[in-house]
């Protein structure tokens, strides 16, 4: 089984974000592997350990994303590739999915592509379904359990975490699967792993390497643009503390307030 985990580098979830001229900055906060993508590389490693084959991490992003890929190598991925090119800047979710599809095709002989359910910066959650469609593969999103895989019959059975409960379904491989929290417990890199990753050379692919048609990616290829980003307006709420001599008195006062607010 050859498995590819697509990962994205994002600012730390606790970072204090600032916006300068519609560009987001995060000061000294570290860049991390998108938290949802940790479940993707962990599942790739678990499947590789079970079925053999290769776990490969790929990421599209600036050169800083090499660090995120080194994390993937440190936890045990066999190979990592960075897809980086100035021409990719400004890509929307669809252009990103198209680029990732080209990279998966270049790797060749891939049975399964795993992604986290969304990246915590853009928060779109669109890439998996788009990537699957570009590849012409089965798409299974929101997967909380891979129940079984039959590598010979090329089938997969999963549980998907839907609004109404868990949906159990089967499908044919190759497939694109997006995963959520609860599917596994991502491992920490070992000391040996970190040392190995530090020495590794991570190949970089540009648009020419992937045979991408000009105008299909980056700003030129993006259908969606985002001219303005700005801080969420701060709600001027000063907390009104409810006090009283007993829990009952506090409860009665609070109930009055909430009924007056018409939220009950």
């Amino acid at each position, binding site marked *: 089984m050859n498995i590819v985990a697509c990962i994205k580098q994002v600012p730390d979830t606790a970072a204090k974000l600032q916006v300068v001229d519609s560009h987001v900055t995060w000061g000294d906060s570290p860049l991390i592997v998108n938290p949802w993508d940790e479940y993707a590389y962990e599942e790739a490693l678990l499947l590789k350990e079970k079925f053999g084959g290769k776990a490969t991490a790929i990421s599209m992003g600036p050169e800083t994303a090499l660090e995120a890929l080194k994390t993937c190598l440190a936890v045990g991925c066999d190979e990592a590739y960075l897809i980086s090119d100035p021409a990719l800047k400004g890509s929307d979710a669809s252009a990103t999915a198209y680029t990732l599809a080209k990279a998966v095709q270049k790797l060749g002989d891939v049975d399964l592509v795993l992604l986290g359910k969304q990246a915590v910066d853009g928060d779109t959650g669109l890439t998996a*379904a*788009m990537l699957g469609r570009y590849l012409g593969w089965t798409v299974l999103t*929101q997967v909380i359990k891979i129940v079984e895989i039959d590598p010979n019959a090329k089938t997969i059975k999963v549980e998907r975490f839907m609004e109404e*409960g868990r949906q159990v379904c089967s499908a*044919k491989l190759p497939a694109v699967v997006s995963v959520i*929290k609860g599917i596994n417990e991502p491992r920490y890199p070992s000391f040996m792993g970190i040392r190995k990753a530090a020495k590794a050379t991570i190949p970089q692919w540009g648009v020419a390497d992937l045979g991408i048609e000009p105008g299909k990616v980056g700003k030129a290829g993006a259908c969606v*643009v985002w001219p303005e980003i700005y801080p969420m307006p701060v709600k001027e709420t000063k907390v009104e503390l409810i006090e009283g001599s007993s829990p009952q008195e*506090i409860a009665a006062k609070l109930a009055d307030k*909430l009924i007056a607010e018409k939220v*009950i």
Partner: protein
Amino acid sequence: MTNKIWVYIDQFKGEATPSAWEALTAAKTLTKDLGGGVTALVFGADVGKVVQQAFEFGADEVVVCDDPSLKDFRLEPYGALFAKVVGEAKPEVVLGIAGTRTRDLFAYASVDLKTGVIVDATGLTVKDGAVQVTRPVYAGKLLCNELCPTARPQLITVRVRAFAHPEAQPGKSGNVTKVSAVLSEDALSTKVLDYVVEEGQVSLDGAAIIVSGGRGVNGPEGFEPIRQLAKVLGGAVGASRAAVDAGWIPYAHQVGQTGKVVSPDLYIACGISGAVQHQAGMRTSKVIVAINKDKDAPIFNLAKYGVVGDLFEIVPALTEEFKKRLGK
């Protein structure tokens, strides 16, 4: 099928999802600028009721595909059908309610339609003929204005509870156009085998009231008073990541960056300190109440009403109080 504004109505087992109609309200805000009526798009098996409701909730026309292969939502048949019907009719915009099915459908079909998708709209305006979407990004810390300037149709999901549920006009009807499924069952790779509903699972998605517990509930049994209060208020039970990671309550209840993003009328945070990752999931709630022992907990910066005290005293007292007030 000549309307410029379409709405995809999400349904599950022949019933529209409760928040699906909010997308019709969102659509009506665009008719003044874009003109024309609103077409509702209904896919499924035995969805006659959804078609009728679509008219009652404001659609002027319905395009429906009622076919056994569409019983369960699957991307292959839904996506192929959506791309064909929408590709031929060429509306300016298709709206839908934010959720797993609609987001996946728009994403999948957008590749065939060679267009863009914008998700989780909390506001819509029209700018130079394109729908400009306001949506939260970076876990709700920032807002973003996004648009699809030239590609059509614009595929946009609106966040649950960002637009009001429309008033029903009983008995209203209109023109129904029936379309046929595109793919036959044997062309489909995905088979839905079963649904497993976890015990006590509540949908946080459309809840008007949520009572949440955090580290301060101290264990699985600590959620009991939280559940009682939620029950009396007719609300759902939420939880912070700390409580979920400790194994006190299933992940389905988690509110926050790696859980659900909710926007109820009332959010009661019990024993939750209010880390930024939790705030990301609930900061747009209309009224936030914080109950916490620690008067310096960050949750008090977000709350409208606060009680500094022991949740195990305050929460049961609130439950009793509301039992009296609500006559339960």
